[in-house]
């Protein structure tokens, strides 16, 4: 899922300073699961903004709404009336959600209330970790399902680097060494031989460095 975290209140106040009628719009999908932009977080951020508005005499009028998915026109439609009633939209969706709303309502300013961080999973209660860099050319099958592009701080395809200490990454000692994980995993599934092969330089063309990516499925475009 897409993992995000809320912007700090002073930054939000600066973004909204000249606004009066504000719709705080949540998203019921990824950002709900990562406790950043769901119905509950919409209420918390709205409440904090109302208090900040009193403290700084800003006169915010805040309406709250959460739709099922901000990155889908079918669901965005459900927010049409609320969007009409307000001057601006503070979206608590991911970056895709914010842009989908902005494209749909060209006359309304739409601001991001979250910082979209990464594609990851809930590792344990209150801890999310990055698992996928969306590089566009997946190599997971070669590394026992553990991504060296994302989880190795040096993105090494022919690791390990030799700098790990007690199975911990030397760049981020709070994280396990990805190559240690790859070794254990390949050993467990009987594929250690894979490590004897030298992996050629990765093709980065399908990644973001080639510009904004598009996928076309002609069979669905009639």
């Amino acid at each position, binding site marked *: 899922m897409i993992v995000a975290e809320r912007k700090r*209140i002073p930054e939000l106040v600066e973004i909204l300073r000249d606004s009066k009628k504000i719709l705080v719009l949540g998203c019921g999908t990824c950002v709900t699961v990562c406790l950043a932009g769901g119905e509950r977080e919409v209420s918390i951020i709205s*409440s904090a903004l109302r208090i900040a508005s009193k403290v700084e005499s800003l006169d915010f009028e805040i309406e709250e709404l959460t739709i099922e998915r901000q990155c889908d026109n079918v669901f965005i439609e459900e927010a049409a009336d609320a969007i009409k009633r307000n001057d601006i939209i503070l979206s608590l969706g991911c970056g895709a959600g914010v842009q989908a709303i902005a494209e749909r309502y060209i006359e309304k300013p739409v601001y991001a209330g979250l910082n979209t961080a990464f594609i990851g999973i809930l590792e344990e209660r209150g801890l999310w970790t990055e698992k996928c860099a969306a590089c566009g050319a997946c190599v997971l099958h070669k590394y026992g399902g553990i991504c060296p592009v994302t989880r190795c701080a040096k993105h090494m395809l022919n690791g390990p680097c030799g700098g790990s200490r007690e199975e911990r990454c030397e760049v981020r000692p709070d994280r396990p060494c990805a190559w240690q994980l790859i070794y254990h995993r390949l050993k467990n599934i009987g594929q250690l031989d894979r490590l004897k092969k030298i992996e050629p330089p990765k093709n980065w063309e399908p990644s973001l460095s080639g510009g904004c990516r598009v996928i076309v499925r002609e069979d669905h475009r009639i």
Partner: protein
Amino acid sequence: MKDTPLKLCLFYCSNSLDANALRQSFSEIGTDELTTVSLPCSGKMDLLYMLKAFEKGADCVMLVTCEQGDCKFLEGNLRARKRSESVDAILEEIGLGKGRMRVIQNKNEGGIHQIIEEIESLRKSIRNQR
């Protein structure tokens, strides 16, 4: 401004506090306004409850929990403390400063007297900020 009565909001775990006795003792020490809210366990405490209390005009919010290790639901008081710290951090972000949110552990030997002392100390610190 310093003499205006404070609005205090006190959430409490109903397993650890006799709110009637607390209100009785509180009425003897001043004219500030005290609202009490009962919870089945302090672990029911939510960020939103605390923020809503501030939004409605509370000068400070207190949460009475059982002593550490005494929670009937094992870790309700630990969760409540973490959530209170979160609210304190949000209030600081907003510009209200730290210290308007206080967790009070109801120690068996101290009882109501100890809680009233904690409320007094919080009242003084809020009055000094005015």
